[in-house]
C-alpha cells in the first residue's frame, strides 16, 4: 500500500513538474538567438562617458558611425553617403545616407551628428580634442548635410570620425547627445542594427539586443566596422560569466554559443571538443606595457630607465602572460603593432639580444641610484598585470634595485597611478597594463606614446623629439612619408624610454561549430554570423 502511494505521489510530482516546465528560450536550439559571453560586464552603455572596450563593443550594435574602419584600418563611409574636402583639408562637407532612422522611428539628421560630434570632441583626447582645437565651425547645412571648418589642415578627418579606438564617434539623437560629456546618458537610442532591451537588462548578468527592422545596411559586404551590417539573429543575448572555467564549461555544454575571451589555460580542453572551434580573436593583439613614472627619482633620469630596458627580457614577460603557446606572442622591439603598415623596429636594439644585467647595474651606479625603494603597483586581480608585475619584481631585484611590490586591485591601481606625488608620499614608480594593438597602429589613437609631459598619459613622459615626430605624422602626405616619420618616432621613443613594451601577444576566442561567419577583429563582429 505504501509503495503504491509513493509511486502515485512521485509520478504526480513528476508530471506536475513536466507541466510546469515551460520552454526556456535560452536553452532552446534557436537559430535566431545568439548567446554570447563578452570579455567583461556591461555595466553601462555610454560609449563617450566611459572608454571601456566592452561598452564600445555593445555600442557598436546600438549606434552607427559616420565612417567605419575595414580590416586594413582604412576608414570607409558608413552613415555617410558622400564627402569632400578642400585641397588644404580645412573644410570638410559630409552628406548622410537617405533613410537612416533611430530606434524611436525618428530620422537621423545633421543636427544629431553635430550634437554627437560636439560631445565626442570634448572627451576624445586623441583625435576629438585636436579637432576641437582646430575648429572654426561645425554647422548644419541641411537635414542630411553638415560641414566642419578648421583653421588648420587635418587630412585624417575620415579616420578620426570612424576610428575604432575608444571613445568612438557614435551618432546619437540630439536630445541624448546634448548630455554633459562627463555625465552618463539615460537613454540608449541609436540607429544601429540592434536595439537595446533596457527592460531586460540585468547589469552584471545579462544584456539583450533585439534586431532593429528599420536599419538600412549599406549594399557592400561587411568588412570589420564598414559595409552592410546584416544581422541574422532576432536576439543577441550577452551573458556575463565572470569565471573563466564556468564560461568554458557553459560553452562545452552548449549553454552559450560564443565566448569572446576564453582563458588560455583552458584552450587545450576546448580544442579537444569537436563541437567547439578555437581561433585567434584579434589579429592586432595587444602590447604589454611597463609604465614608468618620469616625474620622480630615480626614473626621471633616462639612464635608470635605460638600465631597466637593457635588462628586460620580453620572453620572460610573454611566457608569464601567455604561457607556453608560442604562436600567441612575439618579442616587440618597437612601439607599433606588428603586421600593420607603419610597423617598424628602427631603434629597437635595446630590446633585442642578450640581456645585460651587468651593464644595467653599471648604468644604475652611474646614475647615482642608492637603493631607494621602487614602488611597483601590481593589480593582482587582473591576470595580465599580475604576471607582468611578478616578472618585473624579479627583474628589478636582479639588477640590484630595492623593489617594493604593492599588491592591489585594479580599482586601486587606477586611482594610485593618477597621483603625481612622490612615490614615498602615495605616488608610484612603475605599474603594468597593456594596449590594444588597434590603438597602436599610428600615433593618433596612441595615448601611451604621447610625450607631452604634464598632459601626457600616466607617467607623464616629456620628450620634444617624440612630440615633433607625432606632429609631423599628422601632416604626412603619403604612406612612404608616414613610414619614415614613424621610424624616427620609434627611435626617439626608444631612446627616451617613454615606456617599455613587454612584448606583443594575442588571445583566443571560442565558439560552437554550429556558428559560422565569425571574423578575427579587435572587437566581436555580429554581422554575417549565422547559426545552424
Amino acid at each position, binding site marked *: 500500500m505504501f509503495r503504491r502511494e509513493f509511486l502515485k505521489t512521485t509520478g504526480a510530482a513528476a508530471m*506536475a*513538474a*513536466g507541466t*510546469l*516546465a*515551460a520552454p*526556456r528560450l*535560452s*536553452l532552446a536550439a534557436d537559430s535566431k538567438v545568439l548567446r554570447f559571453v563578452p570579455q567583461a*560586464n556591461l*555595466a*553601462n552603455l555610454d560609449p563617450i*562617458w*566611459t*572608454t571601456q*572596450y566592452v561598452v564600445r563593443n555593445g555600442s557598436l550594435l546600438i549606434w552607427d558611425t559616420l565612417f567605419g574602419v575595414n580590416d586594413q584600418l582604412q576608414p570607409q563611409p558608413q552613415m555617410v553617403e558622400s564627402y569632400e574636402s578642400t585641397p588644404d583639408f580645412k573644410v570638410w562637407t559630409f552628406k548622410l545616407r537617405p533613410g537612416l532612422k533611430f530606434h524611436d522611428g525618428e530620422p537621423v539628421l545633421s543636427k544629431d551628428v553635430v550634437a554627437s560630434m560636439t560631445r565626442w570632441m570634448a*572627451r576624445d*583626447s586623441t583625435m576629438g580634442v585636436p579637432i576641437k582645437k582646430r575648429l572654426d565651425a561645425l554647422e548644419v547645412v541641411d537635414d542630411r548635410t553638415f560641414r566642419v571648418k578648421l583653421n588648420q589642415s587635418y587630412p585624417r578627418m575620415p579616420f578620426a570620425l570612424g576610428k575604432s*579606438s*575608444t571613445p568612438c564617434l557614435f551618432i546619437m539623437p540630439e536630445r541624448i547627445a546634448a548630455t*554633459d560629456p*562627463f*555625465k*552618463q546618458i*539615460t537613454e540608449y537610442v541609436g540607429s544601429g542594427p540592434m536595439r537595446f532591451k533596457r527592460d531586460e537588462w*540585468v*547589469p*552584471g*548578468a*545579462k544584456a539583450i539586443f533585439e534586431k532593429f527592422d528599420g536599419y538600412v545596411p549599406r549594399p557592400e559586404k561587411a568588412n570589420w566596422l564598414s559595409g552592410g551590417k546584416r544581422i541574422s539573429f532576432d536576439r543577441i543575448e550577452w*551573458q*556575463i*560569466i*565572470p*569565471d573563466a*572555467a*564556468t*564560461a568554458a*564549461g*557553459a560553452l*562545452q*555544454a552548449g*549553454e552559450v554559443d560564443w565566448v569572446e575571451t576564453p582563458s588560455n589555460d583552458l584552450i587545450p580542453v576546448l580544442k579537444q571538443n569537436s563541437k567547439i572551434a578555437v581561433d585567434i580573436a584579434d589579429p592586432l593583439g595587444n602590447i604589454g606595457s611597463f609604465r614608468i613614472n618620469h616625474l620622480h627619482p630615480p626614473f626621471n633620469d633616462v639612464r635608470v630607465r635605460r638600465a631597466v630596458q637593457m635588462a628586460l627580457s620580453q620572453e620572460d614577460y610573454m611566457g608569464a602572460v601567455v604561457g607556453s603557446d608560442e604562436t600567441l606572442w612575439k618579442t616587440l622591439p618597437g612601439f607599433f603593432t606588428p603586421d600593420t603598415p607603419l610597423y617598424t623596429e628602427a631603434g629597437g636594439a635595446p630590446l633585442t639580444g642578450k640581456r645585460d644585467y651587468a651593464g644595467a647595474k653599471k648604468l644604475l651606479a652611474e646614475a647615482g641610484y642608492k637603493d631607494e625603494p621602487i614602488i611597483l603597483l601590481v593589480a593582482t*586581480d587582473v591576470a595580465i598585470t599580475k604576471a607582468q608585475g611578478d616578472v618585473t619584481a624579479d627583474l628589478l631585484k636582479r639588477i640590484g634595485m630595492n623593489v617594493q611590490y604593492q599588491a*592591489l*586591485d*585594479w*580599482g*586601486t591601481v*587606477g*586611482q*594610485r597611478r*593618477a597621483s603625481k606625488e612622490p612615490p614615498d608620499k602615495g605616488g608610484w614608480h612603475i605599474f603594468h*597594463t597593456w594596449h590594444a594593438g588597434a*590603438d597602436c597602429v599610428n600615433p593618433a589613437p596612441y*595615448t*601611451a606614446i604621447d610625450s607631452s609631459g604634464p*598632459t601626457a*598619459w*600616466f607617467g607623464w613622459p616629456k620628450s620634444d623629439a617624440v612630440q615633433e615626430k607625432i606632429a609631423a605624422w599628422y601632416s604626412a602626405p603619403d604612406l612612404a612619408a608616414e613610414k619614415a616619420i614613424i621610424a624616427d618616432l620609434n627611435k626617439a621613443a626608444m631612446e627616451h624610454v617613454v615606456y617599455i613594451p613587454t612584448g606583443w601577444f594575442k588571445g583566443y576566442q571560442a565558439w560552437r561549430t554550429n556558428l559560422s561567419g565569425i571574423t578575427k577583429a579587435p572587437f566581436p563582429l555580429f554581422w554575417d554570423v549565422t547559426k545552424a
Partner: protein
Amino acid sequence: MGGDPKGRAPLRGSRGRRLLVEHTMLAYAARRILATIPVVLLVALFVFSLLYLAPGDPAAIIAGDQATPADVERIRASLGLDRPFLVRFGDWFFNVIQGDLGTSIFTNLPVSHMIAQRIGPTLSLMTFTLILSLSTAIPMGVVAAWKHGSWIDRAVMMTAVFGFSTPVFVIGYLLAYIFALRLDWLPVQGFTPIDQGLWPFIRNLILPAVALGLIYMALIARITRAAMLDVLSQDYVRTAKAKGLGQGGILFIHALKNAAVPIATIVGIGFAALIGGAVVTESVFAIPGLGRLTVDAILRRDYPVIQGVVLLFSFVYVLVNLAVDLLYTVFDPRIRY
C-alpha cells in the same frame, strides 16, 4: 541571540496563559525589530566610513585605461566624489532614511531596482540550500548520535570534516565537472526563474545548493550529533525505551525536540556563512544574485550599491537571529521573553 529565560507566574486557565504568552512574544518581537534600527544605522556609518577610507577610484574605472588624468578628475567631480566626507555621508543618510538607497555610479539605475533584480536568485538559492542542508544534516546527526562509535557515526563525521575543510569553489567546480560536463544531467551555470517552470528552476539550483550547503550541512550535522548525544543520555529517554516506544519515535519526536535549541542557534549563526558562501557560489555558477552584485560593486567601487547591499544583509541577519530567538519558545516552552 536569545535573552535569558524568564519564569512567569502561571495564570488561571490555559487560554489566559496563551494570550499572555502571545502578547509578551509580540512585544518582544516589536522591541527587537525596533532595536534593529540603530544596529543597521551603525552598520551604515561603519560601511560608509570604510569605503571612504578604502583606496580605489570609480572615476578611474569609468574613464578607462586610455583616459587622461584630467578626464578622471572631471568624472570624479561630476559624481560628487570630491566632496567632503560629512557632506557625502549626510546626503546619503538623508536619502536612506527616506527609503532611497541612491543610484549606482556605473549603471545609473536605482540601487533598490538593482537589488530587486538580484534578490530572487539569492533567496531561491539560500532557501533551497537551507531545505537541502536541514533535511540532510539533521537526520545524519541524529543517526550518528544513535549509532555513536559505529562506522555510520565515523562516516557522518568524516563527511562533516570534508564539508568543513573543502572550499565552496572547489566543490562547485567538481560538481559542475561531474554532473554537468561528464554526465550531462544538470546545467553548468545560470538561473531560471520559477515562472519559467519548476523543473528548470530546480535543475539550475541543485549543484550550487549542494556546493553552498556542504559546509552548512557539516556544521548542523556535528551540532545535531553533539546535542543528541547529550539528550540520549537523559533519564526520560531511558524511560521511553523502557515503556516500549519505537526507536524512530524516541529519536525524532522526543529527543530531537529537546536537542533543537542548540541546532536552531547554529542554523542562525550559520546563516552568515551562507551569505558569505553565496558570494562565491554565485560567481562559480554564474547566478545573477546579490552575491555577484556585491563582488562586482566592490571591484568597481560602486559605493551606493555596496552600501545598499550591506544594509540589506545586515537587516536580514538581524531578522534571522530574531526568528531563531522566537523559535526557542516553540522548541522549549519553558523559555519566555
